[in-house]
């Protein structure tokens, strides 16, 4: 009984992790500029990797390697925002202005559609 629950919990976690990684990939392709893309790139690390690592921890059961998995997740949670911030900051230093819908009115709309194609 418990084994079955564990099995399905692992499956659900892996599928959710895949889902968020997929969404993140879609977001990177669809969103208009570097800042907006940084938002969604972090999804892969937080919930994508998070769910997958949780599944790994569950699958391994109670042993040393499980602790490593949790530690791994902890470090991912520290490094991911640092990297996202570094990218956004260097974009700001380079002088890239964030894309806003009002600013360019109709062109903004067409830009979004351009990304949709």
């Amino acid at each position, binding site marked *: 009984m418990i084994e079955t629950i564990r099995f399905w919990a692992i499956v659900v976690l892996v599928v959710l992790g895949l*889902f*968020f990684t997929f*969404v993140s990939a*879609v*977001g990177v392709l*669809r*969103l*208009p*500029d570097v*800042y*907006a893309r*940084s*938002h*969604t790139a*972090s*999804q892969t690390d*937080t*919930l994508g990797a*998070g769910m997958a690592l949780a599944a790994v921890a569950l699958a391994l059961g109670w042993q*040393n390697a499980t*602790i*490593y998995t949790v*530690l791994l997740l902890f470090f991912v*949670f*520290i490094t*991911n*925002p*640092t990297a*996202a*911030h570094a990218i*956004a*900051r260097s*974009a*700001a230093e380079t*002088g890239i*202005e*964030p*894309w*806003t*819908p009002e*600013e360019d009115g109709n062109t903004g709309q067409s830009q*979004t559609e351009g990304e*949709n194609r």
Partner: protein
Amino acid sequence: MADRRVLVPLSESVTVRQTVSYAVQTALADDVDPAEVQIHLVVAVPYEADLPEGQDKIEFATSLLERAAAWVREDAGSHSHSLTIETEIVGDQEYLFGPRDYAKAFAAYADEHDLECVILDPEYQPGATAPMLQPLERELDRVGLRYDEAPVERSARHERLVGPGSRSRLFAMFLISYGFYLTLGDPTYTFDLVTGAAVAGIVAVTLSHVTFTTAPTLVGSPLRVVRFTLYIPYLIWEIIRANLAISLVILRPSMPIDPKLTRVNARVRSGLPLLALANSITLTPGTLTVRANNQQLIVHSLTQVARDDLFEGSLERAVRFVFYGREAAATATPKERGDAEVIGGEEL
């Protein structure tokens, strides 16, 4: 034979006072005729004087020189009337860039005034650049100018091995690294216990003063760790919520995004609390910290919902709870106290 004619480059450092006093002591040593002693105090300005920021620097340098001249007179005591004190700003006619430029400027000044030796402040740091001492000494060697490093006691940045606070740092660092080592290893295996203690000892001695900016306390620090572990589930919950919201936005064919830059003045101390807050903001999809200058965060937000959450300041309250306790957490939201606003891209 000690040096009678010395050049003392000054910068605003914690040890500048001691450096001046050392220069006076060595120049006046061995009962020399104080009339022969010349102490030249110079401040090197890294910018051209006609720029606006150069003007600030010049004023700053002048005030430092005035103070330093007063120190020299104070230290010289009864000799203060006979010795010569010269103050000068160097580099205001040129653009001093690296240690080589500084060394050249000092050498030119020393040549002009026939000076024998440079007394260096170990914390010498002109401008806002990286530590200068070692490259400057190398360049002074190249231009053939003799230098002497003032023996100073540093309190702020380089603490002595045993001092107030350093013992608790050492102990905390040892515990943390030992704990980490045993987590990765096997706590029941004697070999791991012994090697872990050795490694933790080395780590504690070499890195404890780097790791902690403030010395850990017996009650406060464990309490913060406990509150931090309470914070993690809350943060994960926030991350999941924000992830779902952003996923929906991205997957909607119309993609209703409304990206804007916002400025939020956070009510947390610089350093670790600000890092925790900025990191948490970036971890939640939909908000991304672009800049963090002291308490001022420039945050890029992807949707109106994410922006509202940010302005509600729930993460800020949680971080305040972790670092300052429960009472501090009950504070006004950034929106209520007017610390949150939407800004244009040109203000980056």
